């Protein structure tokens, strides 16, 4: 290959060749700026090598203190608190799923023709979702007092926001041809909704709700931190008095519970909607 040919190729596809002049430095400059920003952020977060080193040593110590896990004879108490946690997740998700169905219908573009209603529903669900369920929990503890009921309300409100958004998106992704087909048989609007749209979204609704039972069991374990019931109260209590062996025992119980719930929910999902249509998360 001779030289003139090479030059013409460079002219043809300049992006394949190394940059020349100032452009060659652009990448380094960008990298430098990113590095500076990264280090600035670290200093804002008060991260130092010394803190990391000392903290890691102490963390290893804590893990050492966790073995062997021990119950101190309070297994029954802990198991009841875990049952409370699971109940909170189940009831919260159930009520949220029921509330989210009409709300998502009002928020879906292809079902609700009135724009402002749609806008209001979608934006309020954004606002509700913006707060973690623990924040809702402190509000509800203020309203209904300490106990798992506050936790249930917190999960309900938070999940209604999330599920409304997910359900509305599922509704907007339905095949319009099917509803047209039902409409063509002379069905009313309500009948079109019931027999044209809902059969398409029911599997998605169910899969999402089941998945949220799972994820709520995880998030409900910490609601006890603010007094909203469940195992979180014991977990935080033992942590605050540095009873690490009991902490490890409670964490083990939680891990086993979550594994059991995950397996149950997977089996249920497969039986209810078939393996192929499981929403991937």
């Amino acid at each position: 290959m001779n030289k003139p040919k090479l030059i013409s190729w460079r002219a043809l596809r300049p992006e394949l060749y190394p940059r020349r002049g100032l452009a060659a430095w652009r990448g380094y400059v960008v990298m430098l700026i990113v590095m500076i920003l990264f280090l600035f952020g670290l200093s804002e977060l008060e991260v130092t090598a010394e803190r990391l080193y000392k903290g890691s040593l102490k963390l290893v110590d804590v893990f050492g203190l966790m073995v062997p896990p021990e119950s101190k004879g309070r297994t029954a108490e802990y198991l009841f608190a875990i049952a409370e946690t699971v109940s909170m997740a189940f009831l919260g998700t159930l009520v949220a799923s029921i509330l989210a169905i009409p709300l998502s219908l009002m928020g879906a573009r292809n079902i609700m023709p009135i724009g402002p209603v749609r806008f209001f529903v979608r934006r309020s669900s954004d606002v509700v979702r913006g707060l973690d369920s623990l924040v809702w929990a402190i509000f509800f503890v203020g309203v209904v007092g300490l106990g798992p009921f506050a936790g249930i309300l917190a999960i309900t409100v938070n999940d209604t926001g999330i599920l409304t958004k997910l359900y509305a998106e599922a509704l907007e992704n339905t095949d319009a041809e099917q509803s047209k087909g039902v409409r063509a048989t002379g069905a009313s609007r309500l009948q079109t909704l019931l027999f044209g749209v809902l059969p398409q979204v029911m599997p998605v609704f169910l899969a999402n709700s089941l998945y949220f039972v799972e994820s709520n069991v995880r998030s409900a374990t910490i609601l006890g931190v603010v007094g909203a019931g469940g195992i979180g109260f014991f977990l935080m209590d033992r942590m605050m008095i540095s009873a690490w062996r009991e902490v490890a025992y409670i964490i083990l119980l939680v891990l086993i519970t979550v594994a059991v719930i995950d397996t149950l929910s997977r089996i249920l999902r497969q039986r209810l909607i078939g393996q192929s249509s499981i929403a991937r998360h």
Partner: protein
Amino acid sequence: MVADNAHHQDALQLNHSLTNAALARQRFNEAFMHRRSQLRRQWVIGALLIMILIGISSVIGEVNLVHLWDRLPRFTSYFGRMVPELSWATLWPDLARWYWNGWVWLAALWQTILIAIYATLIGIVFGYIASFLGARNLSPHPSYTFFTRRLMELARTVPELVFAVLFVYSFGLGPLAGVLAIGLHSMGALGKLFADVAENVDLEQVKGVRSTGASWSQTMVFGVTPQVLPDYLSYGLLRLEINVRAASILGFVGAGGIGQELYTAVKSFNHTDISAIVIMLIISVIIIDSFCSWVRGRVIGRDNLKAI
């Protein structure tokens, strides 16, 4: 006679096929009824099970609708007290009084967002490495897959707040504990999602890189990474959205961010402070969410273009 016989034959045949049709109809009806009663039975059993579950969990969860009804006025008054006194004539002074501690809250909010960003970075970097070890088709040895997957499960099942308390105990109060806690949790969640993506890569491309004599890590970087990068980035951005919310509550246990200010306001019954902080929080969450979904749209869009 012959014609008559033929007629007779026809009639017989017709009769026969009629019986066949009747038989088929009867069979269909039976099958239908059987299936319907089966479905109904399943529905009844399912409904009963759910009812029982609801009953048990209502008792355990101390659900008390009468209590809720009684407390409903408190509900409105609790949230009503959060509404600040604003009048149009003195809007600016009123707003200033509402956000009397605004700069402190803004700094805390900034810290919250930083915690979320750095935790997501930790999650992406370690999840990236873990995904190749945890993907069954890429891992150098099945035992790596097993241990990586179990480690990821552990990291994402233990709640962030529990990690946060552990890290506050060992690294001291402040945002560092929060970054590590959410980072560890993100690593667990992203590592699993990334590994699932990596299990679906096109192995021909991987073999192509391998055949040039590349080492395992080189194969991962040049053979697998280009295929999975858009999905990884998309999941990473979703995680950032989740982490901003998670970072907002870390302050409850002293691990930095705006949660500390929020918890103080709640504990001291400064209701207008609560609403001021919550509004700031919600606005920043919505801004970050829309930014993330905009970037995600671009990332996935570019990927789609490549596919065409």
